[in-house]
Structure formats: structure tokens, C-alpha cells
């Protein structure tokens, strides 16, 4: 479960202060797929960074798996990012000189999972997202956009995270592939009992999620 309570983020540049996220409060139960929609500059990416412990909030609390993320120190934050959070990016952001399976194994290596276990799990996840054996051995450059995003989803699931944060996961895909990826995420939320929070511009996709939030100038409202 994801519980966000009165999160505020203020960026200061000299004398100028910009409030990117203001008093954001919401809850997404485990196994649910929620989406956030909003215009560019509305604070969506900042909110995602705060939830992913990439950025510290100015105030407020984020509770994931009964732990207040805002209170974790640096070392614990690295562990939290590696084991409790899964990231999916619009541009996939796979490591280019690693094969698909090596990309999926990477977060497990950082989480100190044994080599045998990470190989088995990576294979299982890639098969689960629909990547065939020979495609699993290819480097990202030799995979299509949809296949790369599948690898990114498998990588996000590698350490069995409690929360998956997806930033425009279908933004670079055609509508048919986008729909397939959405269906995949939706199914995984149920089967893996993982909370998924996706930022999207695509209202048709947002409309199909369990919960939809709208972010406008840093202020969040539930649709």
C-alpha cells in the first residue's frame, strides 16, 4: 500500500522559491493500478521522484510497506530504491551494452541476490512479459520499443517491489503496443500484488486504471 500525506516540495533558486508539489495526499492500496494525469510542468515528475526516494520532500510523509520513506537516511534510501521500488521510464533507460536478461539481473545484483537465483528469476520475468529466449539474449539496440519496455517492466519487477513507478510508460509506443503494455502492467499489479502508479498523458489509458488523479500546478485531486 502507498500512503502519501501532505507532501510538499519547494525548490529554491536564490531568492526565488517554486512550489512544485503542494500538500499532496492520497492512498493506493496494494495490487491496484493508479494513474496521475496533468499538463507538462504540473509537478508529475517531481512527485514521482519524491515517491521513488530520488528526491526528498520539503515536508510530509510517504509510507510504503509500513515505512516512512521521508525519514530514511541515505544508505537506507538506496536499499529502499533497490528493493521496494521499481522504475519504468518513458525512454526505457536500459543499459545499452547489457543484454535484456543482464538488464533484468542488474537490480538483483545490487540487492545481493545469488547469481543462480537472479538468472532464474530474470528468465521467468522476461518470459512473463512475453520476451522469447533469443530476444532475452539481445542487447536493447536490437529490440523494438515495445520489447525494450517489456524488458524495463521485467527489470522493475526484479526485486519484487511493493511499488512500481511508471513515468509515461506508453509515451514512446504506438497505440496498439501501448495498450499491450498497459494490459501487462494491469495484470502484473494483480498477479504480483504490487501497487503501480503511472504518470500519463493518455486519457484513454488513465481511464482504465483503478484510480486516477489529476495534478494541476502541484495540487492533486482525485478524478
Amino acid at each position: 500500500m502507498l500512503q502519501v500525506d501532505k507532501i510538499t516540495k519547494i525548490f529554491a533558486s536564490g531568492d526565488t522559491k517554486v512550489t512544485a508539489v503542494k500538500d499532496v495526499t492520497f492512498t493506493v492500496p496494494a495490487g491496484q493500478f493508479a494513474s496521475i494525469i496533468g499538463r507538462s510542468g504540473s509537478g508529475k515528475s517531481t512527485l514521482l521522484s519524491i515517491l521513488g526516494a530520488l528526491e526528498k520532500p520539503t515536508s510530509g510523509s510517504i509510507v510504503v510497506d509500513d515505512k516512512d520513506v521521508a525519514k530514511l537516511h541515505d544508505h537506507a534510501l538506496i536499499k529502499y530504491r533497490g528493493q521496494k521500488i521499481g522504475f519504468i521510464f518513458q525512454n526505457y533507460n536500459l543499459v545499452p551494452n547489457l543484454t535484456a536478461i543482464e538488464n533484468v539481473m542488474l537490480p538483483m545484483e545490487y540487492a545481493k541476490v545469488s547469481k543462480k537465483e537472479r538468472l532464474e528469476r530474470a528468465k521467468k520475468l522476461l518470459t512473463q512479459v512475453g520476451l522469447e529466449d533469443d530476444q532475452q539474449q539481445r542487447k536493447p539496440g536490437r529490440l523494438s520499443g515495445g520489447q525494450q519496455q517489456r524488458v524495463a517492466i521485467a527489470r522493475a519487477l526484479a526485486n519484487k517491489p511493493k511499488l512500481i513507478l511508471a513515468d509515461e510508460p506508453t509515451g514512446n509506443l504506438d497505440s496498439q503496443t501501448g495498450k499491450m503494455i498497459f494490459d501487462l502492467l494491469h495484470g502484473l499489479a494483480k498477479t504480483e500484488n504490487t501497487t503501480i502508479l503511472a504518470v500519463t498523458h493518455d486519457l484513454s489509458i488513465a481511464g482504465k486504471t483503478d484510480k486516477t488523479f489529476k495534478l494541476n500546478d502541484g495540487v492533486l485531486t482525485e478524478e
Partner: protein
Amino acid sequence: MNVVTRGIRNAFRNTIRTFSIVVILGLSIALALSMLIARQAVGDKINSVKSSVGNTVSVSPAGYNAMSDANNALTTSDLASIKTISHVSSVTENLTGRLTTEGATAMVGPGGQSDSNATTSLKSAVNLNSVNKEGGDGPKIMINGSSTLPSNFSLPVSILGTTDPLHPNGNDVTIKSGKAIDGSKDANQAMVSTAMASKNNLKVGSTFTAYGETLTVAGIFDSGTQAGNDIVVVSLATLQRLSDQSGVVSAAQVTVDSADNLSSVTSAVKSKLGSSADVQSAQEEAENTIKPLKNIQTISMYSLIGAVIAGSVIILLTMIMIVRERRREIGVVKAIGASNISIMSQFMIEAVTLTVLGSVIGIAAGVIAGNPITKLLVDNSTSSSTGMGAGPGRGAFRSISHSVNNISASVGWDIILYGLAAAIIIAVIGSSIASFFIAKVRPAEVMRAE
């Protein structure tokens, strides 16, 4: 795949860039290694020259020039005073002369002999090269304005009067037949070299003439050098009498009981003889001889430092460039749970891989180029700074000077291991600075910049 494998694989991510970096780094390491080899070879040579220096002090008349007849002279009474200096074991006194072969055309010029009595029945043991003969196209000896040698031309014969016939000019000689003459007695006895004996059909007991008197061959010796074998050795008193230079000495060699006392004895001799003599210890001569080598040591040290700095800068800039280029990737792996240390380790291994590859090329090139570069440095440096070494009693010094050029650089495993260790340190330092930039990468900023 672990961090080591990933680091090594990343080093080959861009083949052309990797090749370029490795070659440049290899050249820098080769230069550093060559300088290290040169420095060590020169250092060994300096130590060898220093250890081979004897405990002697050479004394010659002030401004003595072996190429001229117009020289000041020392006297036996001058030298008697230095025999009383403490720690002086012995003083060898020498007088040199030059004899013209009877019936031959004398060579006039530097060192030419004008005394009509200074003749001998002997011929020089040295054969002139063909270039000096009529029709030759090489350098010519000018005889009375003509470059063509007269048929009766013969090189002059050097005669040495000494108090120590077994060490003429400071070099040891080996008696091949007969016996050594007594350097303290005035007798018409002489020692000739094997080469001169052969040229003039002399045996022990044979006679020849010099300065109008008949001398008997008492012994035949071999000095081991051509110059040392083109000489007739008589006692000092004999040559002083024959050449009508009573009490005159052209050079002396003072032997000190210990090398530790060399400096104090040199000062005492200088003090006793004042401005009438040039006094130089073997140590001073050796110092002068090895001065160019010390210059090479300095040059190689600076070049070594320069090459190491260049290598470090290459690796540093390369790693900074790579880190900047992979900023997004660093942000992403941080976001998926990588710590700064694991990312830094990966980049360090990448830097070490590049450096080790550069080292392989550098060490191979350095090993090949080390010896020629050392020889080139020594030849250029010593040829511009060593003189003719003229003067009597300088044979030992000439051999030191000659041995300085005879340098050989060898590459031991210790040098290679030092070089490799230095290269790895360079890589670690170079990449650790780049690591600072890795630590500064904030994943949130990278994500925002998407």
C-alpha cells in the same frame, strides 16, 4: 555478470575510442618506462664508475698540453715535498719524450720534435691507415705542406721515463718476457711492448739507439691498448739524462693509502705545489666524467614525471568524458538500487582495464626502446661534454671516460612491476577523481532532463 566483468566489458564499449586511448596511454607509459630504464642504467653506470675510481691523485705542470712542446715542468725536488704528506703511500714520477726514427722524415706540427738528438733506431708500432697514403681520399697528415706521405715517413716513437715501470701512465702492464726495469736506477735499459718488439725484431737482450746512446731491451710487455703499446719505457733518471732534462718531471701520480683520505691529500698537494701544478684526484676526474650522466638522470627524471603526469591526465580526462557521457545511465542504475561505491568500482575497473592494456603496449615499446634511447641520451650528452683527456698520467681517466659511453640498459622484472603498479595507481587516481562526478549525479535531475 558482476561489477568486474561489467567494468571490463564497458572498456570495450566504443572500440575506436578504446583503441585510441590505449595507444596514447601506451606511448605515455612507454616514454615513462624508457626514462625509468635510462635512469636506472645511468645510475648503475655512475655507481660503477665511482666504485672503479682508484685512490690516486694526478699532478701535472700547470697548463700542461701534451700536444705542445712548450710546457712548464715540475721537478723532482717539487715532488719530494709531497712525499712527506701523511697518508701518501707512493709518488710515481714520469717524464715523456718523443723520438724521430733515424733517417725518417719528422712530423712537424703540434707535438713535433725539434731536438735533432731525439732520434731512435726504432720504428713506431702503429701502422698508418691507407687513407693517409698517396691516392687515398680520407684525411691527410700534412708533411712540409704536402699531403702526400714521403716514402721514408714514420710516426714518432714515444718514450716514457718513470719511477714505476709496471704502471706507466697509471695503467698496469704485463711482462711477457724478460723482466721489468728498475725505475729508480739510471741505466741504459728499456722495456718495449710486444707490438714494438715485433715491428723492430727485438728480443730480450737486443739493443737499439735513442738520443745517440745504445739501450738494451730488458723486458717486453703488453699494456692491452694500442697507445700503451706504442711506447718505450725507461727509468725516469735515464730519460732525464738522455734528454738532458735533469730533475724535470712532466707528470706524477700520488697514491693515497685510502679513498677516504683522497680529498685531504688532494688539498694538501694543491697547497704544497701552489699554482705551479694542476692537481686532480681520481674522484674529481670521475665526477667530471659522470657529470653528463647526472644530467641524463635529471632529464630522465623530469621526463618520467612528465610522462606519468601525461598518463594520469589522459586517464583522468577519459574517465571524466566517459562519466559525463554516461550520466543518464549512472542516474538510472542509481535509481534501481546501485550505490555510489558499486558504480565507482565499475568505473575504476574500466579505467584499470584501459590502463593495463596501455601498459602492455607501453611496456613492450618501452622494453624495445629503452636501450636505444639510453644509448642516444648518453652519446649525445657525453660527446658534447668530454674533452680529449690530454695530459700525462691520464690513461686511467681516459678509460673511465670511455667506459661511460659503454652503457647498456637492461629491463628487469622489478622495473616492469614498478611500471605496472604505477600505471594502476594512475588509473585509480584518474578514475577516483571522475568518481567525484559520479557521486554528484542525482537520478532525479537525470530523470527530469529526459
